[in-house]
């Protein structure tokens, strides 16, 4: 029997991920590392922006695509991470790694509290509860003086650790790239681990998972907390890059945008999240630029909305589905 050789292949999708194109993420990583030397100004800023959003989208992919939990409040952990980075920095700034740990820890803690309650609901109720908690966090920062109110708050000095000084733009580039590699690598490992297999099982059929003996609540909560911490990482990077945070980071628009990135790129695939972040950011960038679309640039929300409707209608499996379709034809 050839069951042992077949055993490595769980699903056609898994075969795709770990088959012929497993080197692709590494290639992209090397390309991005090299590009760091060449890029300057606007292109470099754009790449950094996309990488940060890719981390954010990847963190949500763990919930939406890997566990089947559609959260519409993911901006809360992103914002909490960013605010903690600023609030925990002293007059003279703070240590990069200490602040990073604090940001991710705070986001994880908030995710633990929200997850513990919201995971008792399911379906559309879960979506609403996560949204409600995110709005709560938004209004705490918006309406109290805790973080400078609706104006937001500035960092006096950006975080640094020895030569890793976030005042330096190329340091920002490589720190963000390292964070992206870390996030992608961690989630790729999780996806193939027993934990990841259990999350996939929960996504497909939670009832069967419980009947088999899995305490699914604990698994979902763990995924929720990890996703929160990684969103906090993305938030920290935004704060350290911009030296500024405001409550809009926690608004439901941002939660919606990151969800769109995941859907646009393709649910369930790490590459999909990255692709979605790239596509969404570029679309937004192009559609809001006079040079490309003329006076329509002032109405970029409208054109972006139409573009996304078009994308989702034509590519129900997201951009990653396009790549897979091409592969199948070969």
């Amino acid at each position: 029997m050839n069951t042992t050789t077949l055993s490595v292949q769980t699903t056609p999708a898994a075969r795709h991920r770990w088959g012929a194109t497993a080197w692709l993420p590494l290639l992209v990583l090397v390309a991005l590392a090299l590009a760091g030397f060449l890029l300057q100004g606007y292109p470099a800023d754009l790449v950094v922006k996309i990488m940060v959003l890719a981390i954010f989208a990847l963190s949500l992919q763990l919930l939406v695509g890997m566990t089947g939990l559609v959260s519409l409040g993911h901006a809360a952990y992103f914002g909490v991470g960013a605010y903690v980075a600023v609030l925990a920095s002293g007059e003279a700034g703070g240590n990069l790694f200490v602040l990073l740990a604090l940001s991710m820890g705070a986001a994880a803690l908030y995710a633990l509290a929200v997850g513990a309650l919201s995971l008792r609901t399911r379906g559309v109720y879960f979506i609403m509860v996560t949204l409600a908690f995110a709005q709560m966090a938004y209004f705490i920062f918006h309406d109290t003086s805790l973080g400078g109110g609706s104006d937001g708050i500035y960092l006096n000095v950006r975080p640094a650790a020895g030569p890793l000084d976030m005042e330096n733009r190329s340091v920002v580039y490589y720190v963000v790239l390292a964070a992206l590699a870390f996030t992608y690598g961690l989630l790729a490992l999780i996806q193939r681990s027993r934990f990841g297999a259990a999350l996939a099982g929960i996504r497909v059929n939670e009832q069967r998972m419980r009947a088999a003996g899995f305490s699914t609540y604990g698994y979902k909560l763990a995924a929720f907390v990890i996703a929160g911490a990684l969103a906090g990482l993305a938030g920290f990077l935004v704060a350290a890059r911009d030296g500024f945070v405001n409550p809009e980071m926690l608004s439901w628009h941002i939660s919606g945008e990151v969800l769109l990135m995941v859907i646009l790129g393709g649910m369930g695939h790490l590459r999909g999240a990255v692709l979605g972040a790239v596509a969404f950011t570029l679309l937004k960038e192009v559609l809001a630029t006079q040079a490309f679309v003329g006076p329509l640039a002032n109405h970029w929300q409208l054109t972006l909305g139409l573009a996304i409707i078009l994308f989702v209608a034509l590519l129900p499996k997201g951009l990653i589905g396009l790549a897979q379709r091409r592969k199948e034809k070969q």
Partner: protein
Amino acid sequence: MSGLMQVHGLTRRFGGLVAVNDVSLELNVGEVHAVIGTNGAGKSTLINMLSGEIAPSQGRILLAGADITQRPQARRALDGIGRSYQRTTIFPEFTARENCRLAAQAASPRPWAFWQTAQACQRSGDAADAALEATGLSTLSARVAGTLSHGAKRQLEVAMCLATQPRVLLLDEPLAGMGAEETERMLTLLERLKPRHAVLLVEHDMDAVFRIAERITVMVNGSVIASGNPHAIRHDPQVRSAYLGEEELA
């Protein structure tokens, strides 16, 4: 020896409706205990209480002498209670083997070991292969479960139960929607499982029930009206009236 699983005075009310009323029964290793009754007799509610999906309003459930009435479903599954559902409940996107492997993984979860691949888990892989072997699905192990025939899916669900190495099997209409040949295959499988498992079988196929069960419990409107060996049940006047005409019973 007293039964592996003992149920005492189990009752479940949904508002004013008494779905299961004071049901007591016993499951023994080496026996198929069939529960029959019309639709709405409370059979599925009974299974759901035994597997821990819903809490009983009253009564006690003992497994090997230990009171498990308050234990959550996942804990009961690990304690050795496997179940199948009336509606096939599998992972359609995964291969047949991954269906079984994932079920078996519950016994060796190690969720924190994120650096180890799930496929490297020897124990769950072996349990999956054994379960597929036992149910005669080995040749279909690489097939995506959603593409299997109805009968094979039902068998796979039993295989997934077996992969968790249960002592008690709660099977909710495993023969539903099956053709003659598939029914035959499932009954042969149940015969083979009998010696090492205590089986509770909810089933509408009376021929199958009378052929395979050592003990039959008849439920009507949530209550047990008769319980005994197939011969006694066949000749029980109350059972006959319940099945022949509802008005006589009322």
